[in-house]
């Protein structure tokens, strides 16, 4: 009550200052997004309704053929595969990331920051190089196989790469920190007294986790899932390197339309459909998160 009164007072007295403040604070960000996101996406949308130029580019003759082509079973299959791969990656990231984030949050403070730095360290190296180094490690003539053979643990080299599972594991490796960090942030905020209260009231640890900890950290979980799912869905480096080019994801498909097939309009349609999908996922996130937060208020 007092808060809303105060807010109203300040609104009345400083409307103009508010506006100025808003322009100064939001202006650079909005300008950046407009120039580097809204305009390119508009261009992509425009390209999608024209015909392919013979040497790339577009010929400005209207067509809807690009959209009907996107419904071909080959492309739908690739899209479904990509959703499946990104989905599995996200679930695995939750399974691996949640306990990790939980453990870090329970560490003494000075160890916490060290642990967090360790989580982030892989980001100091370029993603492409990190992924390529996996080939060095895990290929048939790689370090791991050589070591296992030398110690007589195996007798024929293991084929660990160039499968769909290798793609999932590679994506998991690449994006796991993006799951751990938001989860850590929300777990760390948990009030330990809530857990004690639950225990005093007779809740088992499992019960306390599912009816207390999990709902309270849902926002971190959802944020982490989005952070892992979206870049996994659009990734084309991992399928190419660790998948040996034998797994095609929608990212590869879009890249190929622009860089190899000289079919910008079709590439634009595919890009738009991924944007639409991602948008739908954001809507779902929004709804789920709202439900959780209203649950918490009750």
């Amino acid at each position, binding site marked *: 009550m007092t808060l809303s009164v105060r807010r109203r007072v300040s609104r009345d007295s400083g409307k103009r200052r508010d506006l100025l403040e808003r322009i100064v604070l939001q202006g650079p960000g909005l300008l950046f997004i407009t120039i580097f996101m809204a305009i390119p996406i508009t261009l992509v949308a425009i390209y999608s309704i024209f015909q392919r130029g*013979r040497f790339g580019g577009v010929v400005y003759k209207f067509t809807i053929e690009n959209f009907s082509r996107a419904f071909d079973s080959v*492309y739908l299959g690739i899209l479904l595969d990509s959703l499946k791969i990104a989905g599995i990656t996200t679930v695995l990231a939750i399974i691996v990331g949640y306990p990790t984030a939980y453990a870090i949050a329970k560490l003494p403070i000075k160890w916490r920051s060290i642990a967090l730095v360790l989580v982030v360290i892989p980001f100091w190296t370029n993603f492409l190089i990190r992924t390529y180094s996996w080939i060095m490690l895990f290929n048939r003539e790689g370090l791991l196989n050589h070591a296992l053979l030398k110690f007589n643990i195996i007798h024929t080299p293991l084929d660990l790469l160039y499968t769909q599972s290798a793609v999932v594991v590679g994506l998991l490796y690449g994006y796991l920190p993006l799951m751990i960090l938001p989860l850590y942030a929300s777990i760390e905020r948990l009030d330990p007294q809530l857990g004690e209260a639950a225990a005093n009231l007779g809740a088992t640890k499992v019960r306390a986790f599912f009816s207390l900890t999990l709902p309270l950290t849902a926002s971190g979980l959802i944020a982490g899932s989005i952070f892992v799912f979206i870049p996994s869905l659009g990734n084309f480096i991992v399928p190419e390197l660790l998948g040996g*080019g034998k797994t095609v994801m929608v990212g590869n498909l879009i890249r190929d339309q622009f860089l*190899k097939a000289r079919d910008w309009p079709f590439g634009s349609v595919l890009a738009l459909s991924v944007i639409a999908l991602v948008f739908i996922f954001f809507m779902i996130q929004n709804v789920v998160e709202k439900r959780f937060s209203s649950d918490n208020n009750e």
Partner: protein
Amino acid sequence: MHSVFGNHGKKIVVSSIAVSLLLLMSACSSSSTQSTAGLDPEADLTKQSLVISNWAAYNPPDLAASFQKALGAKMTITNHATNEEIMAKLTSGADSGIDVAFVSGQYAQALAAQGLLEPIDAALIPNLRNLYPEASNLSYDVGNKFSVPYTWGTTGICYRKDLTGFDPTSWNDLLNPAANVKGKTTMLATERWLMLPAQKLLGISANSTSASDMEKVKAQLIATKKTLLAYDDTTFYTRLVSGEASMVEAWDGWCNYGITDNKNIKFVIPKEGSDLWVDTMVILKTSKNKEAAHAFINYILDPTVNSWVISNVLYKTPDKAAMDLTAPKLGITYPNMLMTPAELLKGEGLTDLGASGPMYTKTATEVTSSK
């Protein structure tokens, strides 16, 4: 096929004396012949400046400086990563500011068809006589009317006999591999070369636009996919070196990079035949420095200049004078450098697919995404 190059080979130092001599010769011969395109053979090149677009690391690193020293014209070299990229620039309608572009043969053909190229004035390029006679009989531009070939080559099987235990002779050895090489082969993923082995094995043209041909090619390639280690356009030769793969589809020049590291690596053109690719130099009609542009192409065809690409990129060139200077010695280590023009020309020249492009792309997607 131009992005990764070994650091082997000696740098060719261009002797300024040789260049000035050649210059003198070129000046004499061009003034004795009448120029047909209204170009001035006596033009003061120091007043002209060139913009060249080429693939990165595909010309001597000091080319601009040595060219200016030799001929007086200033030169800027820009890079393109792919044919598609430079084509987009050159066909956009506006003046790209580029005087000379390096593009593959089928793209030169398409640019010429659109009237974007300046006809080559042979009188201004006396070094054309350095070319093999076969080099003026290339399907995309017979007589080199609009383009001058820079490098050429083909595609075949690059393999390690110590791992395969036999010498492959047919595309069938790659496409339907024997048990001991199964899972140890790679194929190129760029669509024209993805299709090529199956097309040749089935006796189909590498430029075929027939849908029923494509169905047969697709069926073979989907069957082959299950036997592949990976699709690989860039690191296939390192896989041979490490022993991860024992047989790969490869461009001849790139197989040489593997041979540099492992002498067991060999290259063969399968008996069913292969392709012939040519990278060319073209002069844009919009160029305001056409005399300098011709002088540049002439300079590139100088054997001491052209030797650079042979020794450092390990590609063959249609420049006989340069090949005679360099290839015999390189051929000891890299036997495919000794391939004769007649052997190369058995390969089918790749031409632009026009409206059938999307069919190739879709088939490539169907193959690489098949399960």
